[in-house]
């Protein structure tokens, strides 16, 4: 009987341990801290650091986009919060926006972030009610970022110098 209990315990433990190893190799954490964050995500207890998110928002409103992104990256290290990822994308948009030309590299990073936000949002739709923003949905922001990375004859239109940043 005792042998049977040990056998069953051993089998369960082997399967659990093997699953943990597969999970570690799949998520590729870079440090013990990331292991802890990924575990929280897996268990469903993951929450962003609200204080750092607010700090990022304050910096964003003062047009300090790079610092804001750093704060949001620290607030959402696992990149699992759609709202934070939306703001990160917005920061890339505003940072890359220019009256004469858009910074393609920044817009591409913004696209990656907004795509993450859309994937994470329930039903793929995300609306952020922030009066300081001119685009409130992830879909709008995505379209704007996509248009910014495309090249067309419209880019030669001199009237674009009068366009406004959203």
């Amino acid at each position, binding site marked *: 009987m005792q042998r049977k209990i040990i056998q069953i315990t051993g089998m369960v433990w082997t399967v659990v341990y*093997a699953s943990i190893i597969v999970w570690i190799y799949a998520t590729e954490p870079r440090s013990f801290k990331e292991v802890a964050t990924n575990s929280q995500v897996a268990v469903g207890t993951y929450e962003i650091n609200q204080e750092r998110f607010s700090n990022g928002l304050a910096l964003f409103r003062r047009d300090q986009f790079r610092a804001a992104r750093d704060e949001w990256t620290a607030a959402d290290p696992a990149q699992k919060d759609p709202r934070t990822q939306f703001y990160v994308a917005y920061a890339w948009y505003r940072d890359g926006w220019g009256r004469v030309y858009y910074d393609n590299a920044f817009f591409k990073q913004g696209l990656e972030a907004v795509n993450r936000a859309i994937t994470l949002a329930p039903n793929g739709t995300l609306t952020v009610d922030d009066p300081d923003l001119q685009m409130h949905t992830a879909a709008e922001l995505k379209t704007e970022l996509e248009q910014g990375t495309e090249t067309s004859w419209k880019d030669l239109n001199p009237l674009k110098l009068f366009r406004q940043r959203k």
Partner: protein
Amino acid sequence: MKDYTERNRALLHFIVTPTILLTVALLGGLRVDAQTSHFVFIAPPLVTLVLAILLGSLFVRAGAIDLRQWFALEQPMLTNLAHLLTLLALFFASAQAFNSVLPESGLLHWMFSFFFLWTLWTNQFSAFDARRLLKSLIVLFSTAFVLKHLLVSGLYAPEGGWFRRIASALLQGIAIDVPAFAPITGYLSFFALALYVAGLLLIAPVPARPASVDNKLAVREDALAESADQLSE
């Protein structure tokens, strides 16, 4: 007294051995980046799975694992299943042990892979017993460890000395792409290989059976012997 022996044997066989082997599977692909000190997890390349299959075949041929005793109709299904899990853990531990001593990319990766394949393939046709096989494996992994973690790492370390200068002169024009990892990677690999050898030492060719199965087998063997005697008469 007997109760303790049987319990400890079961603990060793069903819990400790798979744990050790799975720890090898975890550590075998772990590297630490030299610049950022971040973990880098390298999944076992395809060639290491092929090497693990060849090694598994070698275990069976050398009698280090008697498959007919590990999986038997007389045994409970649970025992067979537990043995299957242990052998799967051994397979992945073997693959990761190879992964641990294989250079990650470039010409050296293929050279090391080729030498491992060559050694394991020729060993398939040699006369081996379990003890000799274990000794041979210790030598094989030690050599690969020294080559990778002492020679090759030293060769491409930023602060490499005279050996690096000689090798650079000899290998001028040959691009050998070796990623730089922190020295702790070598310690992790050493620990993984030591655990792997310990795991191999714990694996018995014939797993210990509970007394009830032994009795059943003894009865069956007696019956077979009796019928053989009757036939010979």
